């Protein structure tokens, strides 16, 4: 049942994802790319969970590396997207 629930959630997210993305105008496609890229850093949660559950040094090292990678992805991704979006203004206000 758990697996089926997860698959159902996945399928709904697929449909929802395509509807949502289709609404983003070309104007914002570059920020969309970097913004979703930041979201893919959600794997940071996986790294924390696996790191916490692991005992072996190898597993913990792998998880730590994953944690660092994912954190860069998250932090860098959201900041760089914000930098881009900051520039989109209807009227310049220099």
């Amino acid at each position, binding site marked *: 049942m*758990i*697996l089926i629930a*997860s698959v159902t*959630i*996945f399928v709904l*997210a697929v449909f929802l*994802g395509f509807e*949502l993305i289709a609404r*983003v*105008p*070309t*104007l*914002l*496609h*570059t*920020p*969309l*790319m970097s*913004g*979703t*890229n*930041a*979201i*893919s*850093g*959600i*794997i*940071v*949660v*996986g*790294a*924390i*969970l*696996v*790191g*916490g559950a692991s005992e*072996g040094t*190898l597993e*913990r090292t*792998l998880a730590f590396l994953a*944690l*660092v*990678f*994912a*954190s*860069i*992805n998250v*932090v*860098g991704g*959201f*900041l*760089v997207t*914000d*930098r881009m*979006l*900051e*520039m*989109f*203004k209807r009227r*310049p206000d220099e």
Partner: protein
Amino acid sequence: MTLAFALSQNVVSAAYAAAAVLFIVGIRMLSSPRTARRGNWISAVGMLIAVGFTLTLAEIDDYLFVAAGLAIGAVLGVPAARLVKMTAMPQMVALLNGLGGGAAALVATAEFFRFAGAAGSAPADTVVAAIFAALLGPLTFSGSMIAWGKLQEVLPGRPVVFRGQQLANAAVFGAAVVLAALAAVAENKAMLSLTLIVSFVVGVLLVLPIGGADMPVVIALLNAFSGLGGVTTGFILDNNALIIGGTLVGASGTLLSILMGRAMNRSIANVLFGAFGQIAAGGPAAVAGDSGVRATTAADVAVMLAYARRVVFVPGYGLAVAQAQHDVRALADILQARGVDVRYAIHPVAGRMPGHMNVLLAEANVPYDQLYEMDQINAEFPQTDVAVIVGANDVVNPAARNQPGSPIYGMPILDVDRSANVVVIKRSMSPGFAGIDNPLFYDSKTSMLFADAKAALESLIAAVKTV
């Protein structure tokens, strides 16, 4: 050190669902430039919630481990995001994306090692998901790094090709799949490690033969892959934030690569395996002075612009190369002050990223209501006095409309040749990304202003001021 309290698994699961909702709302708000920035922060809050609630779980007890990891990530990520140039955005996205894919591979591997070491066998769906992530992750990592290298010009941008390449690639990819299957059946760590390595090689082989200019499509695809990596990890850990977040990323990457392909009138398969851009090296190396080409001077163009009623600027990749976005804006301002109706025509694949031109012009504070999309502006060219092409080439090539044999035939273009006068600013007669000649340059209404875009615009500004 441990946290004083530990929330129940249920509360944390609810927090994950909430994080997923914030991602959804955040992306929804990206559908308008007015709300986009707030949307990005809402997604970030979702991320914060997901991470924060994870830390409250009882099994997370080594906070030093987590804090160190996050701190190193932040120390590297913040300056990178602050310092990167707007023109280097494609590389930046490739780099970050590779890290995400790498993280997915590492997490799946650690989890696989953990349960392969334990007594008893793991549930089948967990094994399958882990294997899937081990196949996708390293490929995403290495592919993104190669893409980064090509865009950063650390690696040759040209497609690296040899005979039998596709066969070789298929063989390596087949090997990865077989290894993955074996690793799954035997729950064998060594086998999984081999899978990781071979998948890494697949990523390199896949992206090396693709031309630098096709990188955005590749990056979008790899973005989708890193999203899928997150989804599979979500299945392993039964974590809805990963499943939903990853799926949204997967949808975004997939749709963006499809849209880019469509705008170039090419299939994704053609992008991946067509080694497009290869012919560029042998393309026409014609120079100024060619028969039928009319070169002009900044002074002449300045007069034309100053007395026009409507001017449309058409930026292209050359604008990004020359970093001339501020100059085009400055010229537009002067013209507008003189009462000229100024617009910008944005082709969906102008530049090297979807929305590339929008980002550059936004950086130069061009209000986005002056930016016109292809369909809107094409109807306006017949009422346009001067179309100024700033470092664009393929996206204004009429061959796409009327030369059935051309490699870009069928790609929708900006119909600049329907305006009264065309001025093309570029450095030479050399071709653009598609490596083909452009009949527009030989058109009787076209005059060529041969110069670097930034230099040309600066002299135009000076010249218009004296008109």
